[in-house]
């Protein structure tokens, strides 16, 4: 009977404790009640959350470098960072923790952090949120991204030019819009110089599994592919494995030309630093609302948010010239890679002739264009 009693007492304690937490658990920032300070105004701390680890030669590294730029631009600012934050409600806790530590500007840097950030943003109207990669915003939450597909298109032009077989490969993670958009842009770029070019896609089912990546490169090589691009969070393995097989590679996220100078073609890379610094400045000066960052912001080649990586040693000069010309045309707005007509794999016209898609349409893509060999699960 004693044990029974104990068990009941314990249960009771737990219940009381959880009920107690009710009273004090108001998570609204108390210091801002009454005054409606502009989101992020006067913040002395900036928080960054990353979905992976900073040093993966890829997506998170690029965002991390952006946070370092903020650190350098504001020497007195304290930077709070949290890595490996899953794209679940756990992200909410991490953001709350940052706010409790005094951060009023927060960068949730992965797409899946959007919904948790929305919830936190609602509770903390005095905190400014800059979310990476979404299509939704709130009063104090803006979402930004780069038109990396512009650079992916250009690297496709380069890849199509240096490929002898016209068989290109793409190592990707999951069939999500960002991935499909890049594969499509890359393929259209290659087809602009070689109408018969095809892109074979290998899904790895992971954002970073070097073993799967190496196997994918081997498999693509067996299938006669001679230039490989990728959409993975860590990019080193694909580039090095391709190099050992004497296959050319196109990078993503970060400039990795030093890894394989001879087989490196070029790459689509991020340059978040200037943007992050500008967004932080805007917020701490109290100008978040009404700025270009309070809604859905997209920067491309012309804004310097995305860039084309340096060319590899073996890329001929005429290819470089061609790519530079295309780049100038995209920057000036005179050419849009996704201007219709664009057909999907099975021949359906997805973008009509004479139509230029909006950001929303582009970033909700759910198909591969003609010339891509691969299957999207439905």
């Amino acid at each position, binding site marked *: 009977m004693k044990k029974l009693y104990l068990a009941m007492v314990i249960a009771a304690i737990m219940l009381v404790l959880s009920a107690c937490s009710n009273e004090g658990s108001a998570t609204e920032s108390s210091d801002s009640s009454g005054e409606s300070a502009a989101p992020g105004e006067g913040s002395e701390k900036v928080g960054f959350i990353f979905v992976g680890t900073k040093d993966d030669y890829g997506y998170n590294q690029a965002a991390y470098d952006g946070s370092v730029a903020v650190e350098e631009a504001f020497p007195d600012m304290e930077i709070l960072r949290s890595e490996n934050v899953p794209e679940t409600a756990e992200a909410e806790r991490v953001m709350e923790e940052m706010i409790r530590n005094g951060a009023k500007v927060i960068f949730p840097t992965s797409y899946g952090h959007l919904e948790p950030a929305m919830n936190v943003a609602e509770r903390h109207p005095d905190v400014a949120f800059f979310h990476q990669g979404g299509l939704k915003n709130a009063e104090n939450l803006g979402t930004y991204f780069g038109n990396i597909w512009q650079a992916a298109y250009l690297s496709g032009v380069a890849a199509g030019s240096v490929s002898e077989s016209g068989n290109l490969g793409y190592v990707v993670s999951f069939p999500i819009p960002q991935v499909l958009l890049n594969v499509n842009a890359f393929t259209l770029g290659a087809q602009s110089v070689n109408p018969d070019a095809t892109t074979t896609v290998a899904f790895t089912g992971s954002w970073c599994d070097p073993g799967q990546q190496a196997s994918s490169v081997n498999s693509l090589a067996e299938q006669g592919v001679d230039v490989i691009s990728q959409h993975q969070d860590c990019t080193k*393995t694909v580039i090095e494995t391709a190099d050992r097989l004497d296959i050319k590679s196109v990078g993503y996220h970060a400039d990795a030309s030093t890894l394989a100078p001879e087989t490196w073609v070029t790459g689509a890379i991020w340059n978040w630093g200037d943007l992050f610094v500008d967004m932080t400045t805007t917020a701490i000066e109290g100008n978040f609302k009404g700025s270009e960052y309070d809604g859905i912001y997209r920067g491309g080649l012309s804004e310097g948010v995305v860039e084309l990586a340096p060319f590899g040693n073996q890329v001929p000069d005429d290819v470089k010239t061609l790519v530079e010309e295309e780049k100038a045309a995209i920057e000036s707005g005179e050419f849009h890679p996704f201007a219709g007509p664009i057909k999907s794999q099975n021949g359906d016209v997805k973008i009509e002739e004479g139509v230029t898609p909006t950001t929303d349409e582009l970033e909700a893509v759910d198909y591969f264009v003609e010339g891509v060999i*691969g299957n999207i699960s439905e």
Partner: protein
Amino acid sequence: MIIEVLTGAIIAGTSVLYATTGELISERAGVINLGTEGSMVSGAMAAFAATAWSGSPWIGLAFGAIAGLLISLIHAFLVIDRKANQLATGLTIMFFGLGLSAFFGRSLVDKQINGFESIDIPLLSQIPFVGRILFTHDVLTYLSYLLVPAVWFFLFRTKWGIILRGAGENEQVVYAYGKSPKLVRYLAVMAGGLLAGVGGAQLSTAFTHTWIEGMTQGRGIIAVALVIFASWLPFRAMLGAYLFGGAYALQLALQGRGVDISQFLLFMLPYVLTLVAMFIVERKQRNMMPLGLKDVFEGGGN
């Protein structure tokens, strides 16, 4: 396509093969070690680090093996000396190895190494069909071809093999040879950890030339499953490891041909195949499980 899949099976299967063989030795002595994952990932990190610093993958290999061994030593101490639950301890070791290697491997991620390169063996690699599949790999893959028969010979044809199996089946055998079962188990677990470390080293310094945290992605856990699939027999463990690797390769080969199957179903393939293969061989193996393990599996209640 057959050549492609079979070659891919060996490429993707070798690291798993080392870990499986190691786990087999450990289980033969009556200790199941889910911490193989922890040994493997630590081995991958240590091997990569040592290769990066020394420039020699062989030194890296040595460090990888030692790292795997040290991690497994914790397991040996806890389950043999402290009689802790084997499965719970193994799982804890897995978390420990993942955390430790992630922590100490942080500065290694962007390093480039001169790891083990693929070497086509002269003449042998010219043999039609088989040559391409078997003899166009790295040194560690070739060593694994020798390892499996060696382990088989050791287990079933040497005195120490009898003693080791005795530790897992019937301690009287071990006493009869004047040895301590405890010592034998320690050695077996350490050998298992060492081979798991070598498997990790193969993954980081030969297969991918990369270190990234958590890069084993459950391969160590698969190794434990494959040992049971293999009914604790070395050659069947080899088959299991290649079956697993082959499923990876097949999945990619199918994708590359635009086959209209959801990639998520394809990703399941290695695990489903392992399960199905276990199902097929299961009936015979019940009486082949080392008795010592039965305590772990069936007496695991309290």
